[in-house]
């Protein structure tokens, strides 16, 4: 009996796991209430919407666009470098200096995005005046950009060359330039090099113009400062995004290769020659384009240079705060027109909640989980939809939040591209919010 008791108790204890859920046979054997879902388009809750420009200038952006799309845009990128000392101390502690003799140089650009189906994609390098700065515009730099290029690098041709994957060569380029890990390099007859970078999200390219002293003379008068511009050309849709981020290590740069002589003070030994190189720090980068971004109007502008953002205020109706659960909220925007340009210049629009409504200077919320993005495709005038579900759910649950958000390009001021949407001042095309929500389940009722 004792064993029997233990057996039975074991069976009972073993059955202590519950499983009370079965497929519902409705309506006869299901709860009386059902999960009721509603779908509504709120056409007038977005109001007091405006656009403001001037958040990020092109020279503060993390990338630059070089593009040449006839009839649409001609965008040119450039950068300037700091000085390079033309004399060096040959030995440590020695107060005497010797001059350096520059014999060649390389100019590097990181291509972050490029049209992958275009052919004959070329980068053309121009020497610009070292005075180029934020006041330089398309017109003022046009004579320099229309001069004969210092060098031309054909990206398409380089990509077609056999890759050099020898570890010794690949790692040497890694160590010299301190770039991200690369898997191969390609070199053309002129000595221009293309590095293929390993990037989890995409494949970026680093291109190196090889320049001799005739192409890139070291300017003693300018204390070694230099300025370089680049244009892009292709059979069609010529457009590339060039890195310009110090943090990301994508800044364009020039490396001067030189040698100098250590004079021998003991007559028994000959003078020795030292080979070295130097990368001056970048002073400035920018891109200029024509035609310039048009001025703001009554529509909602997002993007452009300097960057424009749109502030949209949402008058959330009371019922969205009470006894409902938002399962989807979609912002519906009607473009004024399609964004012209090269297809590879499609960009993202980022909607972010603001922490306080201070108009154009509204601080952005640090809660990135409430942000939403969508991609704006070049040449498409389709209605743009941005999923704001997380944002509207947060507003629904927390009445202390500011029910407004800012839309901006991501990343900002890196391109000529700008999107314009109809605002609330255009009643037929104003922004709307399409909300799908679930009504509170009536527990306890039959």
């Amino acid at each position, binding site marked *: 009996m004792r*064993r029997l008791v233990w057996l039975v108790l074991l069976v009972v204890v073993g059955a202590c796991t519950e499983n*009370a*859920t079965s497929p519902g046979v409705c309506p006869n054997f299901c709860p009386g209430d059902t999960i009721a879902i509603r779908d509504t388009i709120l056409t007038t809750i977005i109001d007091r919407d405006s656009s403001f420009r001037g958040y990020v200038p092109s020279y503060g952006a993390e990338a630059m666009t070089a593009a040449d799309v006839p009839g649409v845009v001609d965008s040119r990128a450039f950068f300037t470098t700091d000085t390079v000392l033309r004399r060096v101390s040959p030995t440590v502690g020695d107060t005497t200096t010797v001059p350096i003799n520059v014999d060649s140089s390389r100019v590097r650009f990181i291509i972050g995005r490029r049209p992958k189906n275009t052919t004959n994609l070329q980068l053309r390098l121009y020497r610009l005046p070292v005075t180029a700065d934020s006041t330089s515009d398309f017109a003022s730099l046009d004579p320099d950009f229309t001069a004969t290029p210092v060098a031309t690098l054909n990206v398409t041709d380089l990509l077609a060359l056999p890759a050099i994957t020898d570890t010794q060569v690949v790692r040497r380029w890694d160590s010299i330039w301190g770039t991200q890990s690369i898997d191969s390099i390609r070199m053309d007859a002129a000595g221009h090099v293309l590095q293929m970078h390993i990037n989890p999200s995409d494949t970026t390219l680093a291109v190196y113009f090889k320049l001799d002293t005739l192409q890139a003379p070291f300017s003693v008068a300018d204390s070694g400062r230099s300025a370089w511009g680049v244009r892009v050309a292709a059979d069609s849709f010529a457009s590339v995004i060039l890195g310009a981020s110090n943090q990301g290590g994508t800044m364009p740069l020039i490396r001067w290769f030189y040698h100098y002589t250590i004079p021998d003070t003991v007559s028994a030994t000959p003078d020795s020659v030292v080979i070295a190189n130097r990368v001056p720090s970048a002073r400035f980068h920018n891109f200029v384009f024509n035609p310039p971004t048009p001025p703001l109007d009554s529509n909602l502008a997002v993007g452009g240079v300097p960057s424009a953002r749109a502030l949209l205020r949402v008058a959330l109706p009371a019922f969205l705060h009470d006894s409902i659960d938002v399962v989807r909220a979609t912002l519906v925007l009607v473009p004024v027109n399609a964004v012209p340009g090269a297809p590879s210049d499609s960009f993202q629009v980022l909607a972010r909640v603001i922490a306080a409504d201070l108009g154009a200077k509204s601080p952005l919320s640090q809660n990135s989980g409430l942000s939403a993005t969508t991609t704006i495709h070049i040449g498409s005038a389709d209605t743009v939809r941005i999923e704001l579900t997380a944002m509207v759910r947060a507003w629904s649950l927390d009445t202390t939040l500011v029910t407004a958000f800012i839309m901006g390009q991501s990343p900002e001021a890196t391109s000529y591209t700008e999107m314009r949407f109809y605002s609330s001042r255009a009643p037929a095309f104003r922004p709307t919010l399409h909300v799908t929500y679930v009504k509170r389940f009536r527990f*306890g009722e039959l």
Partner: protein
Amino acid sequence: MAMGRLGGWAVRVGVLVAVFLTAQPPNRLTAQDSQFGIRGLGTPGKWESVRARTTGGAFAPFDAFSPLTDAVLADVRRMSASVTSGASWRSVDAGGLQSTLRGTRFPAMVITGPVTRRIVVAGGFTTYLDRSFGVVIQDTIDLRGVQQPITDQIISDGAVSDLRVAVAARLHNRLALGLGLHRLTGSTRVVATRSFADSSYRTTTARDEVAYGGVGGSASLLFDVTSDVRVAGWFRSDSKLRADVGGITVAENDLPRMYGAGVQWRAGAQASVAGTVSWRNWGAVQSVANAHDTFNWSFGAEIGSPGSPLRLGARGGQLPFGVGKAPTEVGYSAGLGRQFSGGRGRLDIGLERLQRRGLGLSERVWTVLVGLTVRP
């Protein structure tokens, strides 16, 4: 606590039961609740100890540890307590759609003791309505002009419990009267979840707790016709069952009155048989469209010495909620009892098989029952 040695027959039966239960995969067996209660107030509990349950419920009005009637408490001669537990496996067949469920319940507990030589009081709880269920509903709905597959899951976990304070008095050597006050209480944790196949839609989940409240009263008589024959009659009435969510009453539902009668015959020193009938007017629950009055019967026997009896029983009747005609329930049960520690303790085990049938649904339930009674 010393435990006496049982005879070989008991061990053999017990081992057979255990082997059967452990050899059968759990998904062939099912739980105590019923799908028939989902669309109503719940599944009525069985106010029976393991002893009464294994006799089909027939011994309930004559068993002091079954919370069915109060008058039988007058038989208690010393402070005693009893607890009942059951593990059930349930298979549901709904129009060819089959599922398997399981659950464990402690459906009854009674503590009782005499106040005077003629008056006995008792307290305890039992399950009045079981409200534990879960349903998964898959459907396709039109959202934003697109057919979206959805999955709803509605889960309710809890019960309406019946807290009882009862007093029984022996009015005469052959007549005992019992009265009981009942407080209906308890809650269910409820969750309703809808998930979408399209990840653009967020899964929505609503959780809440429904609290139930009500009061009731019961009265019963126990009359010894002869020294071997007893008859019992009982009556119970309850107030409306209130359902509160967040402190706000969302529903008030009528509860049925209950009438019942039973007879027990001691056929010698080592055998007794009993039978009961009961009625409940569930049809008075206005808020439930398909509520039916129910009639239930039971018949059972207890054979063997009082220290280690074998019990058998059968029951039948109706369930209160179901589409069309009232669903029916038929059950068979068997069990063993064993006293130990010189009669200060008793262990009861049992096995019950129920079959429920209604329009569009049938259920088969196996329940393993274990009861412990102690008289310190």
